[in-house]
């Protein structure tokens, strides 16, 4: 998978590149409008992560350029401006998703994965991890062929952890993923805790003991 990240904040750019490189993405970085246009024009990517405020121009202009030149990469806008107008403008110009800063890398990653799945319909619609199978179309989960009856939130949680498998995902990232960017949702960490507990219990009932691990006070991790 080829990814272009256009972001002027060097430190954040590096974080994103690091994270996606670890997940076997081939990443290109651009930190200005000019550089972004040049790279986007010269190469083909699976996904472009695009900041709106760039030195030399706006990310929205860059998006327009892509559409005018019939480049149909999936685009995820990341912006510090959580304004509805920006969001609407971005999505109108053909962006596929919009994420407000600050975001969790796990969230960005899951958005990119979802985008790639949607856009290219590549591979099967079933995510497998050990004996765990999650069907994206049917929205069902099985473990060694046995069906797990999950609530909508538990399903979302499991999908999020599966997307970020073998990684520690913080409780905060989970809370934001499930409950969206509601303000003042600190109370939702307790919700996360109870969802995890239920999910663990349901997995255990199907004989899956320690697929879902709690990592100190940090978060949770799916790993074999």
């Amino acid at each position, binding site marked *: 998978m080829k990814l272009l990240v256009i972001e002027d904040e060097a430190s954040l750019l590096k974080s994103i590149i690091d994270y996606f490189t670890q997940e076997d993405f081939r990443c290109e970085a651009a930190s200005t409008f000019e550089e972004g246009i040049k790279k986007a024009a010269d190469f083909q990517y699976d996904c472009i992560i695009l900041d709106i405020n760039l030195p030399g121009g706006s990310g929205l202009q860059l998006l327009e350029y892509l559409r005018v030149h019939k480049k149909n990469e999936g685009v995820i806008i990341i912006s*510090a401006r959580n304004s509805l107008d920006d969001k609407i403008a971005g999505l109108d110009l053909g962006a596929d998703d919009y994420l407000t*800063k600050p975001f969790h890398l796990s969230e960005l990653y899951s958005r990119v994965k979802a985008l790639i799945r949607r856009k290219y319909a590549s591979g099967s619609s079933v995510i497998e991890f050990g004996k765990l199978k999650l069907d994206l179309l049917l929205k069902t989960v099985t473990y060694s062929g046995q069906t797990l009856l999950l609530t909508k939130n538990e399903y979302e949680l499991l999908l999020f952890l599966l997307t970020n498998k073998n990684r520690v995902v913080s409780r*905060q990232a989970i809370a934001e993923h499930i409950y969206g960017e509601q303000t003042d949702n600190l109370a939702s960490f307790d919700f996360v805790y109870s969802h995890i507990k239920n999910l663990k219990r349901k997995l255990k009932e199907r004989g899956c003991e320690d697929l879902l691990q709690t990592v100190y006070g940090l978060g949770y991790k799916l790993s074999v």
Partner: protein
Amino acid sequence: MSKTLEQKNTRYLLLWLPVVLLLGSVLFFVMLNMHANHTQEKLLELKQLNVFNAFTAQPASMATHIRGEYSLDEGTVLPKELLDKSRDTSMTYTDKGGKINFRELTRQYVLNGKTYQLTTYVSSNEFSHLTIKVFATEALVFVFLLLAIVVINRKSSRLLWRPFYSTLKKAGEYDVVRNQSIQLEQQTGIAEFNQLNSELTYLVEKVNKAYSNQKNFVENASHEIQTPLAIIRSKLDLLINESGLTEKSAALLGEITEASERLSQMNKSLLLLAKIDNNQFPEKHKINVSELLENILNNYQEHYEAFPSLTRSILPGVYIMANPALAEILIGNLVKNAVVHNLPGGYIKVHLDQTLLSIENTGKEIAERPEQLFERFRKGNADSKTTGLGLALVKQVTQLYEMGLLYEYENGIHRVTVAFNLR
């Protein structure tokens, strides 16, 4: 108790003008009497002269006594000390049916070696009648004057102060949040009021500017803070996945993550508050509050294991006009508040009808005064799980849509009531 300028002015006038007019009347009466007496004296003197001249010309043929006019006597009838001074006297007139008062003056003359005493009379009744009539007229004029002064004063002061009252009314309508414009007359025709209006206009401009600066500052600051927060978050996401993390450092990371999370929550809420302030949620839709409330309650019940026992009395089909995002923030925060600040084994009672939404929950007593609870960064307790901005958001939204907001606490029960704007 304070009175209006007009009342105050009228009161002063009514208090002091009668006193002045009364003193004036007394003075007038005294002067009038003095003049009347003087005139009587002059008339008596003139009569003396006329009568004695007539007598000197024809001493034999002239009558020596005319009642009420004069009497001429030979010899010294009166003692010397009564001469040349006017005296009061009265005579009975049967045909007039009573006594008539006179003023008399006696003088002594010597003609052809004989001594005469001539007494002249002038009726003083006419004079006293005249005096009374003049005085009564004067009193009437004074009363009229008093009324005229009061009325003219009221009219003119009303006219004079009109620019002031118009300024006062406009200043009352001014609100730094909702109605920032104030149009004051620059030329009122009165220098002081012109100055007042221009000073007030200047002041309002400064206040508006300070307010908009403050709003912009909060919004800009929040935006600027987001980038470093994004960096911190991303680095933490990378760091928690580092291999070889010890339990100790993991615990530290956990705490840092939580603190950075609180920071970004606060920042988001502040940004939201600033945006509501800056009217960045202009579009309104018809919102089904009943449905929204049910959804939020169901969500919370589903997500929260220790959800308190819930009693709902929700009238279906209650609509308000509002921004969907703000309506959700309003109701979501109220429900969240009732859940988070509840006690183990407590309850929540939700009531919704066409006019109001009330949410009642058990909870610890809080030291804050109710109105402070809705201020930014006010917390009923030192719970680190809240940002202290939830109720500030509630207040902001209710203010925006001119809804009523009431908080009550009694015997361990907290109740927040939102009264919808029914216009």
